[in-house]
C-alpha cells in the first residue's frame, strides 16, 4: 500500500526526523490559509498522488504569496497525473537548499536483508541513478538482529557530507528511518531529497513510504491511512470481496484460480493474438460467492468483449466454481460470451452443473483461450 507524501512526512516526524512544516489542503481557500499561516516567504504547492514525476507533470509549483498559492492549488487540484486525480495538495515553506541527497531503505531479495541506500545525487529519480551511474549509490545490508549500528550509519553519512556535524545529523536520521521502517511495516522508505539548508541544518524535504500489504491486519492505524479515492474503484471492490484484481487494457476478461496460472492465462491470451482485460485471482478457497463478485467486477468493465474462466481444481473445487457461475448469471444476465475451462477436483460434477445450465465446458487451456480470443474479436 502506497502512502501519500504528507502521510510519510507525519511518520518520519513522529520518529524524530526533522521535517519542515507543511499542511494538506483539499480546497484553494485552505491552501491560501495554510500559506498565510506559514508566514512570509514563498511556499511550494505539491500534488499528493501515488505517482512519481509530479514536478514534470506540473503538480509542484512555487508560490510567492498566499494568493499565488491559492491560484496554483486551483490548477493542481483536480489535475490528472499518470491516471491519478489530484484531490489534495501539500503546502510547505520553500526550503533554502544548499545540497540534496538521497536516503532509502528496501528489503533486498538476494541478501534477504534490509538494505540502506544513499547517494549524494539526491532530488532526482534514484532508479535512473541506479541504471546510469550505479557507482553513485552506496549500499549497506543491515543485519536485522542488531539493526543499523551507529558507526555504520555514520560511515554512510560521511559519503554525503564533509561536515562532521551534518554527517552526525544525517546518521541519526538514518537510524530513525530504519526504526520507522520496521515500526510501520514498510517495504520501502525513502527521503528524497534529504537537504542541508544554508544555515547548515539537515532535514527530510520529501518522503515516500510503501507498506507491505501483509502488515496491514496487525497495524490498523496504518491500514486507516489507505486512500481509496486514489485507487481504481474496481480494484477497491475486488479487495473488499477478497479477490486480487488488476485492470488492464484488453478485451478478454480473465477469471482464474491462483496468481501464477492467472498470469500464464493472460500471457496465453496474448500468445493467441488477444489482449487480457485484467488479472484476477479468485484464490484457493471454494466459495461460490467469490465467483459472483468476480463476474460483477469483470462485467463492470465496458471494454470486456468475452470472459474466460480458467480453473485448475486442487483445493478449489470445480463444482463450487460452476455453481458460482450459474448463480451469478441468473442474478445478472451476461451481455458478453463466456468461455469456461475447468479441470481437476470434481471436474465431472462441474461439467454436469454447467451443461444443465446451458454452458459448454472445456478441459483444455489452449482451446479455451483460443475460443475466448476469437469471441472477443467477433463481438
Amino acid at each position: 500500500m502506497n502512502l501519500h507524501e504528507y502521510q510519510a512526512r507525519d511518520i518520519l516526524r513522529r520518529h524524530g526526523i526533522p521535517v519542515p512544516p507543511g499542511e494538506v489542503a483539499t480546497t484553494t481557500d485552505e491552501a491560501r490559509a495554510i500559506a498565510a499561516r506559514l508566514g512570509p516567504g514563498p511556499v511550494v504547492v505539491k500534488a499528493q498522488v501515488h505517482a512519481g514525476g509530479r514536478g514534470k507533470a506540473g503538480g509542484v509549483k512555487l508560490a510567492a504569496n498566499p494568493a499565488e498559492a491559492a491560484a496554483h492549488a486551483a490548477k493542481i487540484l483536480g489535475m490528472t497525473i499518470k491516471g491519478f486525480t489530484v484531490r489534495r495538495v501539500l503546502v510547505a515553506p520553500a526550503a533554502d537548499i544548499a545540497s540534496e541527497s538521497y536516503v532509502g531503505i528496501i528489503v533486498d531479495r538476494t541478501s534477504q536483508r534490509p538494505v540502506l541506500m544513499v547517494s549524494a545525487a539526491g532530488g532526482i529519480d534514484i532508479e535512473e541513478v541506479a541504471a546510469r551511474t550505479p557507482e553513485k549509490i552506496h549500499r549497506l545490508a543491515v543485519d536485522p538482529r542488531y539493526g543499523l549500528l551507529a558507526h555504520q550509519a555514520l560511515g554512510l553519512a560521511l559519503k554525503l557530507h564533509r561536515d562532521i556535524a551534518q554527517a552526525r545529523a544525517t546518521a541519526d536520521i538514518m537510524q530513525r528511518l530504519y526504526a520507522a521502517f520496521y515500526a510501520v511495516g514498510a517495504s520501502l522508505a525513502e527521503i528524497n531529497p534529504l537537504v542541508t539548508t544554508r544555515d547548515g541544518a539537515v532535514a527530510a524535504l520529501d518522503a515516500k513510504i510503501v507498506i507491505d500489504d501483509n502488515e496491514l491486519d496487525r497495524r490498523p492505524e496504518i491500514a486507516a491511512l489507505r486512500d481509496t479515492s486514489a485507487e481504481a474503484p474496481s480494484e477497491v471492490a475486488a479487495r473488499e470481496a477478497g479477490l486480487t484484481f488488476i485492470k488492464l487494457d484488453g478485451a478478454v476478461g480473465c477469471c482464474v484460480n491462483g496468481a501464477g496460472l492467472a498470469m500464464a492465462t493472460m500471457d496465453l491470451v496474448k500468445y493467441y493474438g488477444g489482449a487480457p482485460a485484467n488479472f484476477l485471482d479468485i484464490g484457493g478457497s471454494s466459495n461460490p460467492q467469490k465467483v459472483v463478485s468476480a463476474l460483477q467486477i469483470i462485467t463492470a468493465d465496458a471494454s470486456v468483449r468475452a470472459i474466460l474462466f480458467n480453473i485448475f481444481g486442487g483445493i478449489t473445487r470445480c463444482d463450487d466454481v460452476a455453481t458460482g457461475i450459474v448463480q451469478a448469471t441468473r442474478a445478472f444476465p451476461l451481455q458478453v460470451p463466456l468461455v469456461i475451462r475447468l479441470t481437476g477436483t470434481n471436474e465431472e460434477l462441474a461439467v454436469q452443473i454447467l451443461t444443465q445450465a446451458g454452458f459448454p465446458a472445456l478441459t483444455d487451456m489452449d482451446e479455451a483461450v483460443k475460443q475466448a480470443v476469437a469471441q472477443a474479436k467477433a463481438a
Partner: protein
Amino acid sequence: MSVFIDQQTRLVVQGITGRDGSFHTRQMIGYGTKVVAGVTPGKGGQLFDSVVPVFDTVADAVRETQANTAVIYVPAAVAASAIFEAADAGVPLIVCITEGIAVLDMTRVLPYLHERGARLIGPNCPGLISPARSKVGIIPGNICRPGRVGVVSRSGTLTYEIVHQLSTQGLGQSTCVGIGGDPLIGTNFIHCLSAFQADTETDAVVMIGEIGGTDEQQAADFVQQAMTKPVIGFIAGQTAPPGRRMGHAGAIISGSSGTAAEKMAAFARAGIAVMKRPADVVPLLKERL
C-alpha cells in the same frame, strides 16, 4: 532417491486441528505420508481422527515421535512464530504453506533458520510431493505420476497445470517442489536445481518462474555452470504491467527490473529451453531426453 522428502519423512503438522490443516492432513495420510504428530496449543493429549497424537508444542511432538519434517498451516498472524518454534525444536525441514507473512518478519526468521541449519520451503507455497512416496503440503496427489522429471516452481496452480501436462503425456515426476510466491523464501531455485542435479532418479528439470526479483537469472547462471541435466524453463507474467503486485507478494516488476523478457533471455543464454506456453513442456522435454 528423491529430493527433500521420501519414505523416511516423519511429519508433524502445525495447525492440525484447523480448517486447512485438518483437510490436508487427511489428504496427506491418504497419499501415504507418515504423519506422526500434530500441534495445536491447548489440544495436547488429543488424537486427531483417532490416529495422530496432538501436542501443545513442536518440541513435545519431536521428542515423543521423532518427527523430522514440519508443515505449517496456521494463520498468517502466527506463521512466523510457528517457523521459529519448529526450528527451535530442531526440525531440519520446515514447509510453510501459509500465505501473508510480513516480509520484515521473514528478515528475522531466515537468519534464525540459517544458524540452526534448518531448511525452510516457502512460505506461501504449495509444498512438495515425491509421487507414490510422500507428499507434504497441498499439491493434489492425483495429478502426479512417479517418474524422472524434477519440477520446481514459484507458483501453485500453474505448477498443477504443467504437472498435469507431464502426467497425462507419460512423463512422471521424481519430486515437485513449490518454493513459494513471496519475495523472501527459504529455498530458492538454485537449492532445488542443485538437489535435482545430485539426484540419481532425476533426468531433467522443469523450472517455473515468474516476474519479480532476480532468482531466475541467478538460477540460469547456475544451470550454465553446474548442471549437466537438461532444464526447461517457463516465466509467467509476460503481460504484467510494471509496479503492480500480480497476486503473489513477490511477483512485481520494480522499475525495469524483474521482467519476464529479461528472465527468458537469461534462460536462453544459459541453454535452458524456454517454454512459450505451458503446453510446450512435453515436446521440449521429449526433444532433450
